[in-house]
């Protein structure tokens, strides 16, 4: 329901996993196979020589330090910034508005209906039900348009399709009141509250 970048997550996690796996396997091989050790000496020795040369040729005039260190530091700062931005993308997508549209009536202006209207109305309608151990309603923004997520925790033994159909009717009634069809997702889930509460026997 949120706009978590799933594909980006997969790609970045995959890259990190591959790199760590490669490093780990290399260390394992170095520890166990002597032939890998000689290959590693020549290969990494060559890279190290090149790096040394790069550092030597980029010294500040008259000082022993290389300005390449500053470049490295800036690159790392950028990397950290990118990581922070990546974390900030996770789980985004909650929104406040259910409807925000221009009203073509006599009074010029926009009409905005807060998501709290739907959340409060549905929560209130669901609070009285004896077959629910809990219900939460949230407004999300999916691909630029608002959507409702209704999470229900029914007691044990409640038929999910009947519950779903009744809550869907509630959503339809809400849509009729608001005057705009909001897509809704009903998640009927189980949790600790449903597992340890008494079973619903009447329905």
């Amino acid at each position: 329901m949120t706009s978590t970048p799933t594909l980006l997550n997969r790609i970045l996690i995959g890259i990190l996993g591959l790199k760590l796996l490669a490093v780990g396997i290399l260390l394992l091989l170095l520890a166990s196979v002597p032939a890998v050790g000689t290959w590693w000496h020549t290969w990494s020795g060559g890279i190290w020589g090149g790096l040394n040369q790069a550092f030597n040729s980029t010294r500040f005039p008259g000082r022993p330090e290389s300005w390449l260190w500053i470049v490295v530091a800036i690159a790392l700062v950028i990397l950290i910034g990118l990581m922070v931005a990546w974390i900030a993308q996770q789980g985004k997508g909650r929104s406040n508005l259910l409807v925000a549209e221009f009203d073509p009536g006599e009074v010029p202006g926009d009409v905005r209906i807060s998501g709290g209207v739907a959340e409060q109305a549905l929560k209130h309608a669901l609070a009285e039900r004896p077959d629910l151990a809990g219900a939460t309603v949230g407004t999300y923004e999916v691909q630029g348009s608002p959507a409702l997520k209704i999470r229900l925790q029914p007691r044990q033994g409640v038929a999910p399709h009947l519950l779903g159909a009744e809550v869907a009717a509630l959503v339809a009634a809400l849509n009729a009141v608001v005057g705009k069809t909001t897509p809704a997702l009903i998640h009927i889930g189980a949790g600790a509250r449903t597992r340890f509460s008494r079973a619903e026997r009447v329905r």
Partner: protein
Amino acid sequence: MSHKLVDEGQASPLESNPVAAGRRPDMRRVLYRETHSSRAAVAVVAAVLVMGLAGYGLLEAAVHAIGQPAWLIEPQLAAERAVALPAGVSPLLLGAAGAVIAMIGLFFLLNAVLPGKRARHVLNGGGSSPAAIVVDDEVIASALARSARLAANVIPEQVMVVVSRRQVIVNVRPTSGVPVTENAVLAAVQDELRAMSLEPVPEVRVNISTAGVIGA
């Protein structure tokens, strides 16, 4: 008694077709996201790991750039030690470190590659329902257990239902001396499942235990 009501409950209020058609692709995406686990937590762990490594590198690089002594290890020295690697460290330690790093890498890689399906089913109410419905397998199992229990006339503790993606296994331990007909239980569970119209449709298997329960 309850699965007779099912067919009436299915007749949910109809919506005008164009509206439903207009947001279909949107809902399919939402449903995919709800039935597959997100990698948000793993992504945060990965980002924090990279940030920690980069932060340490940044510290050493900055310290080096202004000509101060290194904090933990001189980068020069670290690189020389890495080049000379099999020497200088005990092979046991090196192998253990390699194994740990490879394991962490494998964890991240599998998280990225595996489909990550959640134990949930999509409940399609004939396609005319105004809302998309996703149900945890546990809820389906407890509803099926109830209908199986009513059909077999036993108490809740004698029925155990396991719901997986493509299979429903109903285990019934009958009360000693009171026979339970497998077909009745199967029919009740299948009735309930048909009313739910899950996607994907699971297959039902009923196991009636040969040993009965005494005093239930």
